[in-house]
């Protein structure tokens, strides 16, 4: 099955290179965008990946993510453009949330759209998957965005066979999701079989964490703790990697990809269940996607 998925994703990536003049790949340092970059390397071998990489840096990333990012960009030999949320806050373009649950998740959308516009990217490839979340279950491979970067779920283009329509007006762009049909388990099985390098965060490690709303958050400078929230050293790993402020850890002793596969196969909670950005409301993802989130 993963061979079929690989072949489909490579087809979509080549389609982006063929249909767009200035395509970019959204790289978060998470396993899904690492997978997409791995597939992109395969798709264009022995040539270089014909995409500029974009990283939206919220300033609240895990240090392990940043380290991995810089190493992997060099390894792939691609150009990286960083959209800085801190810079946008300093310039007054966006306002930061306040309080215990403050997150830069929402304001990174504005920075992403700004980066796309500034560099005149006409397509942004992302690692979103349909099995992650109910709004993402309705996404296309080629997802049209209007001049404000917005997604209109009620007016999506029908997508038939493997004929992708990348036509757009000046100023509009596309989001492209080559791994739409992969499940979390597919991703892990493939990453393990291919021995794809990953940030250490995905594997079991010792970390000071504290509990909030049923989630285990990393003890760090970016999250103000309430008095009763006392951090304790635990053996944990991360199922998804986002900002330190919104990504929860899970207690786990899985320290290799194959141990993770065994764990994922028996897990009874979705991976987005460790993300407080999705827990804000029942339609948090749909609402953010409409505004231009990926």
């Amino acid at each position: 099955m993963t061979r079929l998925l690989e072949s489909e994703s490579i087809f979509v990536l080549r389609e982006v290179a063929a249909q767009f003049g200035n395509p970019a790949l959204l790289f978060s340092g998470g396993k899904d965008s690492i997978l997409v970059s791995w597939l992109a390397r395969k798709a264009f071998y022995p040539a270089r990946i014909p995409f500029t990489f974009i990283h939206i840096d919220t300033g609240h990333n895990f240090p392990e993510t940043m380290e991995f990012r810089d190493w992997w960009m060099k390894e792939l030999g691609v150009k990286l453009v960083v959209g800085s949320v801190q810079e946008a806050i300093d310039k007054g373009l966006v306002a930061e949330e306040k309080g215990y649950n403050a997150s830069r998740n929402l304001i990174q959308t504005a920075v992403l759209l700004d980066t796309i516009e500034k560099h005149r990217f006409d397509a942004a490839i992302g690692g979103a998957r349909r099995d992650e979340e109910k709004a993402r279950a309705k996404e296309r491979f080629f997802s049209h965005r209007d001049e404000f970067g917005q997604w209109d779920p009620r007016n999506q283009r029908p997508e038939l066979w493997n004929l992708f329509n990348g036509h757009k007006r000046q100023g509009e762009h596309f989001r492209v999701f080559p791994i739409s049909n992969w499940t979390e388990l597919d991703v892990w099985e493939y990453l393990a079989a291919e021995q794809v390098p990953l940030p250490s965060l995905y594997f079991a490690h010792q970390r000071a964490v504290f509990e909030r709303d049923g989630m285990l958050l990393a003890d760090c400078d970016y999250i103000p703790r309430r008095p009763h929230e006392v951090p304790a050293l635990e053996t944990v790993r991360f199922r998804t990697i986002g900002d330190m402020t919104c990504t929860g850890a899970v207690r786990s002793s899985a320290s290799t990809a194959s141990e993770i596969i065994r764990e994922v196969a028996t897990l009874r909670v979705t991976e987005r269940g460790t993300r407080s950005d999705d827990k804000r409301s029942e339609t948090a993802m749909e609402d953010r996607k409409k505004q231009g989130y990926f």
Partner: protein
Amino acid sequence: MRFTTAGSVDDGKSTLIGRLLYESKAIFEDQLEAVRKASERSGDGEMNLALLTDGLKSEREQGITIDVAYRYFSTPNRKFIIADTPGHIQYTRNMVTGASTANAALILVDARKGVQEQTRRHAFIASLLQIPHLVVCINKMDLVDYAEEAYHRIRHEFELFAAKLDVRDVHFIPVSALKGDNIVDRSENMPWYQGSTLLYYLENVHIGSDENLIDPRFPVQYVIRPLTDTHHDYRGYAGRVASGTFRKGDEVLLLPSGFTTRISRIDTYDGELEEAVPPMSVTLLLEDDFDLGRGDMIVRENNKPEITQDVEVMVCWFSDRPLQPNGKYILKHTGSEVRCIVKEIRYKLDINTLSRNQNDLHIGMNDIARVLLRTTRPLFTDSYRQNRTTGSLILIDEATNETAGAGMII
């Protein structure tokens, strides 16, 4: 294995999908919890499994499904992708979209109501899109006391209609999605039924032969030219094998140039291959230095597609701007993109009676018509019946950039 389901909320489609997902443990606790909460809010009392498949806020507010949703589940034997499509008449386009990549179509029939307009519509679309396997689930058997007569009556009714369609493999299963009869486990309530359960059928139906392994077609998708010191003269033709088998050393014909040469290498990142079959994404290298580009096709001398500027298609219309006689559209077919003009609308098809209407040629959203197109450049086509890749095309509205129609080449 990809399958599509269509039907309205009350024929039990959501319950059926919900059960498949639940029994195969593809539903997670936080998803169930979300559904439980939403059910409580809407005052349904019981857990409403339909909420599992209705994703968007606007859909839940209106209690309808607007768009195709994709669901995933797996058993130890097979992985499944469900294209869950809404059954409202105005959303034929979604049904067509979901059907275009499916190996099988699940058609639900309410055992109390028998074959409905909706059933016929879905069966027709499945045949039009050449879905290889049809599974008719005669549902709600618990409400007709698991009567064998009900099953046979509906089966007969469906077969009468299906005789007029181009379907190759039809399978009938009496089920109760609500009670779980014949979904995963054999029903004790229907000892008269000797066939397989739905899940057993889905796990075991042979889909390997759904690909066309006869006619070699390789549409060039993208040309790989590294222009580096180590690969200075490398010129690879990247693409996905549409059909047939390509082997290293094969003599091939290049279209449109008509030159012949041999395949010198079949390249992938993971090393060279001896042969490539559909739907592999590979890179072909040729012995002679010809300049191929996107939209060109690599085939065999003794097995060529049709090379033509006149394309006869069954078109399914998606746009609220009606199909214009003499209208010009962008046409996408494999890797090529040309312009085309609508030369003639032959007839509109009545999807319920399958009759051809030559008097009313107004082709609006969700209509299906037979149309003759003339293209600015030749296309390399096969009939859709023989080849789902080289036999399919889409029409794009030049003014709005919308995908306005889908065409199946006759």
